[in-house]
C-alpha cells in the first residue's frame, strides 16, 4: 500500500465513518506493518479528540432574552380582517 496516497486517504475515510469493511481491514493490516503510518494515524486520532474537547461552548447569559427583545414586532392582522 502506498502510504502517502492510499493509506492516509483511508485514515480520513475511517475518521469520517465512510470506510468499507474491506478497506478497513486493508488499513488495519497496513498499520500493523508500517510504523510511520501508525504514527500518522495516532496523530490524526489525537487531533480529532483535541478538537472535540474544545466544543463545550455556551452562549452568553441572557442570549435568548436578547434575541426575543430584538425580533421585529408581531404583525397586526386585525386591520386587514375588518
Amino acid at each position: 500500500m502506498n502510504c502517502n496516497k492510499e493509506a492516509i486517504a483511508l485514515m480520513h475515510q475511517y475518521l469520517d465513518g465512510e470506510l468499507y469493511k474491506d478497506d478497513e481491514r486493508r488499513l488495519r493490516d497496513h498499520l500493523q506493518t508500517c510504523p510511520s503510518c501508525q504514527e500518522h494515524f495516532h496523530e490524526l486520532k489525537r487531533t480529532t479528540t483535541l478538537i472535540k474537547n474544545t466544543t463545550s461552548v455556551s452562549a452568553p447569559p441572557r442570549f435568548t432574552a436578547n434575541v426575543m427583545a430584538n425580533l421585529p414586532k408581531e404583525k397586526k392582522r386585525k386591520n386587514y380582517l375588518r
Partner: protein
Amino acid sequence: METMIKQKIKEVKKGDQSAFEDIVSFYQNKVYHICLRMVGNSYEAEDLAQEAFIRAYTNLHTFDEKRKFSTWLYRIATNLSIDRIRKKKPDYHLDAEVRGTEGLDMYSQLAADQALPEEEVESLELQTYIHKEILALPPKYRSVIVLRYLDELALQEIAEVLDIPVGTVKTRVHRGREALRKRLRHV
C-alpha cells in the same frame, strides 16, 4: 426533539412569536459555537449569533418544513460569519486573537475564587491553543472542521449547510484535519 421544534416552527408561522423562544433556547449554544469558532471574537460571535436567529425568524416562511431545521439554521449562521470575515480588514490586531479566547476565559473566571487544579488550567490553556489553531485555518477549511465536530455532522449534512458538493467537503475536511494534525502534534 426535532418534533418539538417542528411544532414550534408551525406556531411561529401562525403568528405566535413567543414560540420562537424555545427554538432559540434550544439552538443558542450551537449557533454561538459556530460563530465563535468562525470569527474568534466573543463579542462579534454574540452579535452574529443574534443576527442569525433574527434572520431565521424573519425568513421562516422560506424554510421548507420537510427539511432539517438545524441544517437551515447553521447555514444562516455560517454564511453570516463568512460574510463578516470577508468584510474584516486583513490587518487585524494581535489582541483580537486574545479577545477571541474570552469565551473560554469566562469559565475560569466563573470557576471559583480558589486556584484551579493544575490540570484544569492546563486544559484551559490547551483549549485556547486549539481554538487559535482552528482560527488560523483559512475560512473554507475552518467552516468544515467546525461543522464536522459540532454534533459530529456527517459530510453530506455539511454539504447541505454550505451548499457545496460532498466531494468538496470531503477534501476540505481531510486537508483541514491534516493541517491541524501538523499544528497540534507537538501539544
